[in-house]
C-alpha cells in the first residue's frame, strides 16, 4: 500500500533499513515520513495490549523506535540518513515474528492497570519474583542502549536575554521583532527546523524574523523554573548541548494543538493531527492518504483546501462532533458519522487546545498539590495560545472502548469504572491507571481525561485541579542534562 508521493517531493533517494529490510526514502525526509510514504504506518505498539500505533502528532509512543542502537528515538524528528538501521520496539523475539502481539487477543479488561498486582502472584513467594521479572521485561518495551555509544556529558550553555519568545508562529515573530526593534536582546526558540512551519504549511504569510533576534530552531523549551527566572531547552539533535535561558521576561506563543476526538479507533495509524498531515504533505511531499477525511471545529475547510491544493485526494470534510467511530485493524479503513465513509486517513483540525505544561510549571505552587492559581508574573502568553480552549470532543456510542491514553492503553471505560466506584480526582485517576504517564506526559491525554471526568460528574473541566505537568517530558537525554550541571546553583 504505497502512499502517493506528491509532485513537489524531493527526488533524491536515500536508502536505510526498517526491521532489517532495505527501504528507500527521500533526502529531507524524517524516518516517519519516509516509512509513511512507503505505506508503513505501524511503527510501534502500545505498552500492554500491543495495539498498532504510528505517526499521529498526539501519542508519542507511536513514533518511538530503535535507530542506530539508540532506544526510543522519535522517528518524526529523526532524519533519514544512508544505511540507518531502524527497528520496531516492544516486539519479541523480533518484528517479523512477534509473540508479544498475541496480547491483542486478550480482553483489554484483563490488562487494566492493577492487573500486575494480581492476588495469584503475591509478593513473598518465588512465583512473584518470576512474575515481576517478566513484567519488567514487558513494560520496559525497548532494549537498553548499546554499550558502545558515546557516553560523555554534552556541555550546555547559559544565556541571559531580555526576552525569550517560545514559538515561531506569526505572533511569536511579531513580538520578537518588536522587542528587537526596541533595542532588547531577544531569543526565539521553536521546535521546528524553521520558525512557524505549521503556519507556513497552512499558507499563512509570516513576517521576516528581525536579524537581531537570536533564533534557536529545533530546540524544545521543556521547563520553566523558579517562577520563570530560568527556562531550559533541549535541542532535538541529541548530540547538541542543552540551553538554559535566564530571561527578563518570557512570552509563550506556542499556539494550539488539535486534540484527537475520544472515539473508538482514534489511536489507529492514519489518524493525524492537522499540523502533522500538513507537514507530511507540504514539507515531505507525502500524501496523508489516498482518500482523506478532514474533520474539525471550523478550520477543517482551510486544512482540506490546503491539502487538496498540494494534490491530496479529500473524500470528506465535516464537523468532528459528528464523528462516531474510526474503523480499521492496523490502519484507518473507514469512519462513521451519520453514514459510513470509506477513507484511509483521518485528519483532525480541532478542537484546538493549548498545551498547559510550561505555564503550569512556571506558576503552579502548593504543598499538598501543585495548582496554577496565579500565573507567574514574568511569563505572558500571546497569539492563539492565549485564546480560550475549545472543549474536547467526546464520542457517545462505544465510548468505553475509546483510548484516552493510547501509549499506556488506558481506555475511557477504565476511567469510567473508577468514577462509577466514586473516584474522580484527576491525580488519583492518574495513579490508578497510569493515564498520562507515558512519553507524552499528559498532553493531550489529560485534556481528554478532564473532559471525561467533567462529563461523568456533571462539573466544568476547568473546575478541578489537574495532575501536575512535570518537566522535562523526555526532551533531553541524561548526557544533555549532565552537561547542564553547575550552570545553575542550588537556591538558598
Amino acid at each position, binding site marked *: 500500500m504505497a502512499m502517493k508521493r506528491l509532485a513537489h517531493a524531493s527526488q533524491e533517494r536515500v536508502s536505510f533499513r526498517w526491521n532489517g529490510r532495505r527501504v528507500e526514502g527521500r533526502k529531507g525526509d524524517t524516518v516517519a515520513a519516509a516509512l509513511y510514504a512507503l505505506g508503513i504506518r505501524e511503527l510501534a505498539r502500545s505498552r500492554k495490549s500491543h495495539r498498532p500505533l504510528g505517526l499521529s502528532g498526539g501519542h508519542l509512543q507511536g513514533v518511538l523506535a530503535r535507530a542506530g542502537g539508540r532506544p*526510543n528515538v522519535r522517528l518524526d524528528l529523526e532524519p533519514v540518513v544512508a544505511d540507518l538501521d531502524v527497528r520496531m520496539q516492544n516486539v519479541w523475539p523480533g518484528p517479523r515474528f512477534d509473540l508479544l502481539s498475541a496480547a491483542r487477543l486478550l480482553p483489554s479488561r484483563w490488562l487494566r492497570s492493577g492487573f500486575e498486582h494480581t492476588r495469584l502472584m503475591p509478593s*513473598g513467594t518465588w512465583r512473584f519474583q518470576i512474575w515481576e521479572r517478566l513484567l519488567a521485561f514487558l513494560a520496559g518495551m525497548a532494549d537498553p542502549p548499546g554499550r558502545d555509544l558515546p557516553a560523555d556529558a554534552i556541555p550546555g550553555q547559559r544565556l541571559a536575554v531580555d526576552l525569550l519568545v517560545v514559538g515561531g508562529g506569526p505572533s511569536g515573530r511579531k513580538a520578537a521583532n518588536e522587542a528587537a526593534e526596541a533595542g532588547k536582546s531577544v531569543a526565539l526558540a521553536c521546535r521546528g527546523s524553521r520558525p512557524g512551519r505549521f503556519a507556513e504549511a497552512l499558507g499563512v504569510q509570516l513576517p521576516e524574523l528581525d536579524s537581531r533576534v537570536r533564533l534557536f530552531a529545533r530546540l524544545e523549551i521543556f521547563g520553566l523554573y523558579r517562577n520563570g527566572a530560568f527556562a531550559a531547552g533541549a535541542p532535538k539533535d541529541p548530540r547538541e548541548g542543552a540551553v538554559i535561558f535566564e530571561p527578563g521576561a518570557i512570552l509563550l506563543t506556542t499556539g494550539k494543538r488539535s486534540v484527537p476526538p475520544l472515539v473508538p479507533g482514534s489511536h489507529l495509524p492514519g489518524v493525524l493531527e492537522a499540523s502533522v498531515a500538513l507537514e507530511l504533505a507540504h514539507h515531505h511531499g507525502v500524501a496523508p492518504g489516498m482518500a482523506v477525511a478532514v474533520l474539525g471545529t471550523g478550520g477543517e475547510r482551510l486544512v482540506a483546501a490546503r491539502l487538496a491544493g498540494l494534490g491530496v485526494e479529500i473524500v470528506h470534510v465535516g464537523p468532528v462532533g459528528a464523528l462516531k467511530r474510526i474503523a480499521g485493524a492496523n490502519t484507518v479503513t473507514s469512519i462513521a458519522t451519520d453514514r459510513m465513509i470509506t477513507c484511509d486517513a483521518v485528519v483532525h483540525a480541532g478542537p484546538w487546545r493549548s498545551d498547559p505544561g510550561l505555564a503550569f510549571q512556571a506558576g503552579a505552587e502548593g504543598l499538598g498539590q501543585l495548582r496554577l492559581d496565579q500565573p507567574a508574573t514574568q511569563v505572558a502568553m500571546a497569539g492563539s495560545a492565549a485564546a480560550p480552549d475549545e472543549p474536547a470532543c467526546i464520542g457517545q456510542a462505544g465510548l468505553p472502548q475509546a483510548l484516552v491514553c493510547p501509549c499506556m492503553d488506558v481506555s475511557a471505560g477504565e476511567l469510567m469504572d473508577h468514577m462509577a466506584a466514586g473516584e474522580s480526582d484527576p491525580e488519583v485517576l492518574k495513579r490508578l491507571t497510569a493515564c498520562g504517564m507515558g512519553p507524552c506526559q499528559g498532553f493531550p491525554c489529560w485534556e481528554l481525561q478532564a473532559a471525561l471526568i467533567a462529563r461523568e460528574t456533571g462539573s466544568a473541566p476547568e473546575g478541578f485541579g489537574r495532575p501536575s505537568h512535570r518537566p522535562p517530558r523526555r526532551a533531553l537525554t541524561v548526557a544533555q542534562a549532565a552537561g547542564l550541571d553547575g550552570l545553575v546553583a542550588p537556591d538558598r
Partner: protein
Amino acid sequence: MNATLPTRASVLILGGGMHGLATAFNLADMGLQDLLVLDAGYWQGGASGRNGGLIRGGFSTPEWTRLFAFSNEQWAGLSRRLGHNVMFSRRGYTMIAETEKTADLFETALNVHREHGVRSEILTEPAFASLLPAFDPRKVRRALHLRDGGVAPHHAAMKALLAACREREVDVRYRTAVTGFERSNGRVSAVLAGDERIATDAVLIAAGAQNVQVAALAGVKLAGFGMRIEAMALEPVRPLIRPALALIDRLVYLHQTARGEIVGGIDVPERPRMSLKVDLPVMTGTAKVYLELMPQLASLRILRHWAGMLHITPDFGPLMGEHPDLKGLWISGGWSYGWAGGPGAGALMAKAIAKGEIDERMKPFAPDRFDRGRPVHEAAVVLSKFEH
C-alpha cells in the same frame, strides 16, 4: 469526601499515607473499631506516592538496623497479611562506596548486620559485574549487598493497604484537613475538622512533611522541619539495573521499576523548603552521577522530574512515641526512610497506642530524644547535612 465525619473515633490517625494506613491496619487487626484516618491531601499525594520505593533492613547502627530489619521482614509477609499484593520485590539492595571512609563504614555495618541476623555481604568483583553490568566497576571501592532488601511500587502497596483498611472498616477520608485540637486535663480530647468535631482520646500524627504544623495545632513542638526532596524517572527500558542502589558518597539512590523506568535522585542539604516545585540542579546533578557511574544510560531520556516532601529530624531518624507534653498524642514522623520503615512502624505504633507497650526497637527513636541529648546518628544513609 463531603460525607459527614463520625463524631467519635477510638483512634484518630492524621495522615493516610504508608504510616497512617499501616498503623490503622494493625490497630484494626488487633480488634479495634471506630478507627478514623483523615488526610488533607489526596491518596498517594504525599511522600507515600513520591518516594524512592527502596526497602532495606541493614544500616550501620544497631538502632536503625533493629527497626528496619523488623520492617523489612514485615514487607516480606505483607501481601499475605493484607490479602492484597503489595508487589514487594525482594531483588536485593546494593550500597556502593567510592571512598575509603565509606568502605570502612561498610565494615562496621557488616558486623552490625551479623549481630542482628541481617543477611549482607561484600560483593566480589565478578559478583558485582554480573549483578550490575551497567555500572563502571572502576568507580567502586566496595559494594555491600543486602539480599533481603528490594523495592515496592507505590501504586500497588498503597492500593493494598487502603483496600485492607477499608475491608476492616477503617474509615479513611482524603481531602479532609484538620483545623484544631481540643484537650482536657492534659490529654487530647477531640480533633476539629472545620465545623466538625471528632471526640477521641488517642491521636496519631503521621502527616509527613506537615507533622510540625499539625503538632503546632495541638500546641506542641516537634523536632525537625518539612523539606522538599526531588527525584526523576528515565523513560522505560527492559531490565538493566537489578538491585536497588544507594550511592553513599554521591548521595544518590535509584532503582529500575517493574514498569521499566529508572527512578532516583540526588540529595541536597537538608533545609526547610515547603514547596512541591522542582528545580534544575537536582535533575542535572543526578544525570551527572548516572553518566559517570553508568555510562550506558547516556542516551536515555528523562521522562519526568518531581518533588515530594518529608519531615526531617536533626539526626535523620524517625520520631516514634507519645508526645511528652500531651497525653494521647502519638507521633510517627521524621521519616526519611519511611517507605522501608512503614510496615514495621505500623505494627509497633499500633501496639504502643492500643496496649501502651513501647517496643525496644522504637525506644531509641522517642520524640524527646534531642531534649535528652540522645540523638541516634546514622551515617549509612543518602542524606547530606541538617541545616537549619
